[in-house]
């Protein structure tokens, strides 16, 4: 059979990064093809090349065997390649029918032909057996996420798409809603549409997909028919890599309990999360993107409010109304995205360093203690070896690694005893990572507690004393440093119930 879409020896180089090297994948009509790999394996880059967002540095895209160069996403769409993005692409203020026809509205004369658009939308929804639940005139923003996704699928059907790329389409759906989505995928498949399906969930892959391709570190690993491969082999080929030796880990002595969480629950984001962290320990929280780890940490830090559950600090139950309360209890949080939530990018290093501590170092009448600010900010820039001409440098001008050191300095100055680190080494280079791990070890050696969320398996394995794995907002397992392996973590991280 002739593949309808082929990626042939695709290489994509971004400044400083080789996102894909020599990857070839074929997509056949009437087949669901799983694209698999860890975060950063190159799946997103490949999707963007197939859908015309990026042009490949080397290699070709073939459509029905013919070489083709997409002029942009619109061009790819016009040639029958549609993407259903992880974040929904729905204009929430428009109706269902208006969304389905967005960009290709039907008109009669100079006016919109709402009647025929609504009729066609109803026809599509009937085909999908969704007409009892979704009406063409419903406002899209008032539908559930699952229903909005159905609207996107209706749009794809209306466009007569031949290849549909679905990027983690089930990430915001419930079990019941996933069944409804799979029903639609089967209908599309029976019509000869080729589907590229990206998901981390093993169960789904084996339920809906016909073929799988694994990428790792931007390279092609293997393509198999699903019936010829086992879950174990698939996971092994996704990870299968030596843990690099730049991880710094020293033996710590575990002290008394410092942070305990019991049954923490927040709507759909996380349910019944319980764990305990101790003095002198780095607790790793592993899982895939979207497992609810960040939301859990933000809740502990008081930035969100739980529906139920308890948090104990040093054995006493606490109720944080806002991060201010958490900081008063000597908890610090290094957020996932330092550029938007970690730093005031346009401010000086010293102002960033002292922000959470300012209210504890006020002079009379509320004046800031400039002398203290200057002394302490210089002291910590020195201690953490931040490379900068002075503490008055605008922080946005520093490298990622040095910025992250300043974020850490901020919490050390605030005398934090418990540090929550969310993806602490994202986007910083190898040497800076290694230095950062050393600083983490020093902190723990001095009696601190670290809870580290990381999606990078080697990092979790290399740095943590103990590892908790989350999946879909639940804790699915706990592993000691000795027993933890990439396979075990990946297995626990894809335990969808």
């Amino acid at each position, binding site marked *: 059979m002739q593949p309808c879409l082929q990626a042939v020896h695709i290489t994509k180089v971004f400044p400083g990064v080789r996102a894909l090297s020599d990857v070839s994948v074929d997509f056949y009509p009437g087949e669901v093809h799983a694209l698999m790999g860890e975060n950063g394996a190159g799946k997103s880059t490949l999707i963007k090349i197939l859908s015309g967002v990026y042009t490949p540095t080397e290699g070709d895209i073939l459509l029905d065997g013919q070489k083709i160069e997409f002029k942009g996403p619109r061009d790819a769409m016009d040639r029958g390649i549609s993407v259903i993005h992880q974040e929904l692409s729905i204009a929430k*203020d*428009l109706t269902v029918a208006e969304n389905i026809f*967005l960009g290709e509205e039907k008109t009669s004369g100079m006016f*919109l032909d709402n009647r025929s658009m609504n009729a066609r939308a109803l026809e599509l929804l009937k085909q999908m057996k969704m007409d*009892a639940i979704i009406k063409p005139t419903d406002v899209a923003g008032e539908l559930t996420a*699952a*229903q909005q996704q159905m609207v996107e699928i209706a749009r794809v059907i209306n466009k007569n798409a031949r290849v549909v790329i679905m990027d983690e389409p089930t990430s915001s759906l419930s079990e019941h809603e996933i069944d*409804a989505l799979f029903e639609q995928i089967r209908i599309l498949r029976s019509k000869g549409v080729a589907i590229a399906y990206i998901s981390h969930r093993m169960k789904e892959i084996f339920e809906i997909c016909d073929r799988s391709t694994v990428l790792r570190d931007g390279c092609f690993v293997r393509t198999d028919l699903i019936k010829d491969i086992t879950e174990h082999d698939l996971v092994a080929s996704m990870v299968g890599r030596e843990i690099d030796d730049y991880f710094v880990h020293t033996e710590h002595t575990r002290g008394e309990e410092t942070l305990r969480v019991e049954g923490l629950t927040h709507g759909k984001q996380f349910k019944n999360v319980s764990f305990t962290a101790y003095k002198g320990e780095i607790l790793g929280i592993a899982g895939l993107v979207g497992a609810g780890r960040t939301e859990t940490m933000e809740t502990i830090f008081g930035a969100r409010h739980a529906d139920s559950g308890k948090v104990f600090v040093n054995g006493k139950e606490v109720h944080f109304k806002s991060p201010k309360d958490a900081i008063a209890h000597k908890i610090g949080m290094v957020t996932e995205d330092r550029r938007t939530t970690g730093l005031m990018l346009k401010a000086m290093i010293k102002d960033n360093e002292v922000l959470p501590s300012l209210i504890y170092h006020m002079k009379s009448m509320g004046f800031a203690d400039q002398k203290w600010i200057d002394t302490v900010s210089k002291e910590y820039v020195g201690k953490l070896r931040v490379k900068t001409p002075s503490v008055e440098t605008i922080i946005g001008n520093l490298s990622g690694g040095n910025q992250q050191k300043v974020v850490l300095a901020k919490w050390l100055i605030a005398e934090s005893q418990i540090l929550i680190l969310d993806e602490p080494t994202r986007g910083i280079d190898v040497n800076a990572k290694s230095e950062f791990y050393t600083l983490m070890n020093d902190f723990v050696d001095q009696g601190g507690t670290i809870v580290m969320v990381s999606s990078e398996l080697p990092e979790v394995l290399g740095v943590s004393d103990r590892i908790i794995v989350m999946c879909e907002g639940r804790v699915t397992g706990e592993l000691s440093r000795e027993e933890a392996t990439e396979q075990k973590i990946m297995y626990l991280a894809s335990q969808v119930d």
Partner: protein
Amino acid sequence: MAEKNVQSKGFSAKDFLVKNMVVVILVALILGFGLGTAGKFFQANNLINLTTQMAINAMLSAGLTYVIILGGIDISVGSVAALAGVISTLIAVQIPGLSKLGSIPILIIPALVVGVICGSFNGFMISRMNVVPMIATLAMQTIGRGLCFIFSGGTAVSGIPKTYGFVGAGRWLATEGNPNGWIPNITIFVIIMVAAVHILLSKTVFGRHVYATGSNQQVAHLAGVNTKNVVFLGHVICSVMAAMAGVLNASKLNSGQPAACDGYEMYAIAATVLGGTSLTGGSGSVARAMIGCAVIAVINNGMNLMHIDSYWQKVVIGAIILFAVILDMAQKKKRV
């Protein structure tokens, strides 16, 4: 999934009231002032006056609706209006034998020219140079006002032929009891213009793209909508409507004032928001903005009739704007 749906479909009197609060307010105000002025409010003459008092703001807010649905704001409409008024009257002064009908192109052509130029400036700065709408239109506001004074030499344009006031102050259907006529020309003109921009927004592909762009620019872009052009044209429409309002105002007063329409942008924003157009973009309508205009006009008119200090009118209108925005936020919250 299904249950939630049934719930949202059910008719709820509370939802209806919240959605149409502005209509309720309008009716309450009309009844209140009707009683408060012992029926004077309901006299035919007053009701007709009311439409002429609404006229300028109706034009401004109809155009502004486009920009606000796009998620932007335009605070230059007052200046653009004044500039069009000054230029139109400067031309009228040059034509001593101006006929009544001849005054119409002397209004419309300068308004179109000024509107397209000013709107293109705003639209270009916002859609192509990525200047924040508030700042781009603040610049236009200041530049426009400056040009008014430059062109007029700093004083009101004088020596305008009486016939220039035909559209702005003239009336149809003179009777014995009312020799001036019943139907104001300005009202007819405004109804035609507003209906045109209403239909453009609600019935055409372009209008649909305005909503889509305002709702989520990225989504619209990915669906193949040329969102930059949509933003650009939205600003052109807004400025053209503002310039039309300006020449109507000049014609109504038979005078070209460089300081005309100062601060009118705030009344226009107020009317649009009162009408339920969300300041975060994506939803609203010209027709509903007209209800907002009516609320403001009724408050001003009614308070005048009751001899309430005009300074208090500003306080009341400010409070009502705040109320409308809080209502909008409450609606948005419900949706999440």
